[in-house]
């Protein structure tokens, strides 16, 4: 009996010592740790829609579709596990995992990210060769490197037409600027 009383007193002491431990959340915001992996955010200005994220995504929630001159990149976040593989795979650092964690919803559309990019078509055959941003990036990279294309319009060709034109006029090719 005495043992029991002592143990009850100990329990009461622990509770008293702890005091109030609950946080005022959800009445006040509760910011997560800065390392937190929350809802992925796509920075469309940086994205060149290469699809590396879609290849890396284990849950296969990132899809890429080319249709009517538009490339659509969509994230169905209902299946997201916040692993961050898409962020790690992105060459443009266009995906970050945000601090957002209150994603519960009854409308699946709330968890959909869609980005549309204009496709550039080959000036010879009309086959899509990539998005405007991709072609622009190649142009920028070429400018920054010590290789120069003699004819920049070469970039507006698809891989097959590039080959054909190259066979006809190899002089179009790269020249090393010293």
């Amino acid at each position: 009996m005495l043992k029991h009383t002592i143990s009850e007193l100990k329990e009461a002491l622990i509770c008293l010592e702890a005091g109030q431990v609950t946080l005022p959340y959800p009445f006040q915001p509760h910011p997560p740790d800065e390392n937190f992996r929350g809802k992925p955010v796509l920075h469309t200005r940086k994205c060149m829609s290469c699809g590396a994220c879609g290849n890396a995504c284990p849950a296969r929630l990132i899809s890429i579709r080319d249709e009517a001159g538009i490339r659509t990149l969509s994230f169905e976040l209902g299946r997201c596990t916040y692993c961050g593989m898409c962020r790690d795979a992105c060459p443009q650092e266009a995906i970050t995992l945000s601090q957002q964690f209150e994603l519960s919803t009854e409308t699946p559309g709330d968890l959909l990210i869609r980005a549309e990019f204009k496709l550039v078509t080959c000036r010879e055959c009309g086959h899509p060769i990539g998005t405007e941003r991709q072609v622009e990036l190649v142009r920028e990279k070429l400018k920054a490197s010590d290789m120069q294309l003699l004819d920049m319009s070469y970039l507006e060709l698809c891989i097959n037409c590039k080959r054909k034109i190259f066979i006809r006029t190899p002089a179009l090719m790269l020249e090393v600027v010293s």
Partner: protein
Amino acid sequence: MQAWRIREPVMWLTEYLTGNRKTYGMNRIGGVARDLPPDAMERILPVIDKIETQSVQVVDAILDDSSLRARLEGVGVLTTEDARAYCVIGPTARGSGLDIDARRDHPFAAYDELEFEVCVEHGGDIWARTLVRIRELLQSIKLVRQALKQTPDGAVMADFDEIKPYQVGVSSVEAPRGEVHHYVMTGPDNRPYRWRVRAPTYNNLQSIPALLRGQTIADAPISVGSLDPCFSCTERIQVVDRDSGEVRIYKQAEMLARFRQKGR
């Protein structure tokens, strides 16, 4: 409730170390996603010390609490024979006197380099399972301390070539509720082709008929709770028709109505 209070700093710690409280997302093929941050030691050790002192304090207080003992002793008894027959695992098995633990029996990760005790109790009742969990808590703290001291420096990812498709891998790991088995078959495009998980609650829940036999209704909730079952916290389901692509969402009320109809 005090145990939840003591646990919370651990959740904050895992959020800082892995980026989430529960779904750590650390395991990758070839290694782990993140290295420990440089100040990890300074942040982990005080938390470990604190939960140890606080847990010991709470354990010390409840062990002599006769009302708690009266409520838990002799309730939800799973005999050693039943435990073996139902193939229960983890603390449920160890509370019934079965000396099994995947960390010692099939060492994985670095468990063969660490020292720990497999906690076994012979009562088979809720009190015994509680004691197993309490002792395991203290063992886990010991394991974390050893691991922090012995983890070598170096890369957190190994180099590997492409992953061959249609290869099979099976692993068993001792999770808090018992052995968890994962089966994976690799597929093309660096993705899994098949993946099957056998979580420990699947085994442990099978013992419910034996646990509840001859008991009052009032004992049922704590008996089931003492297995620490992990149910899916689902209040809606999404059904996709593969042929038409049509998506239909069943909300809580509809699901309840449907299952009640079935139950009649």
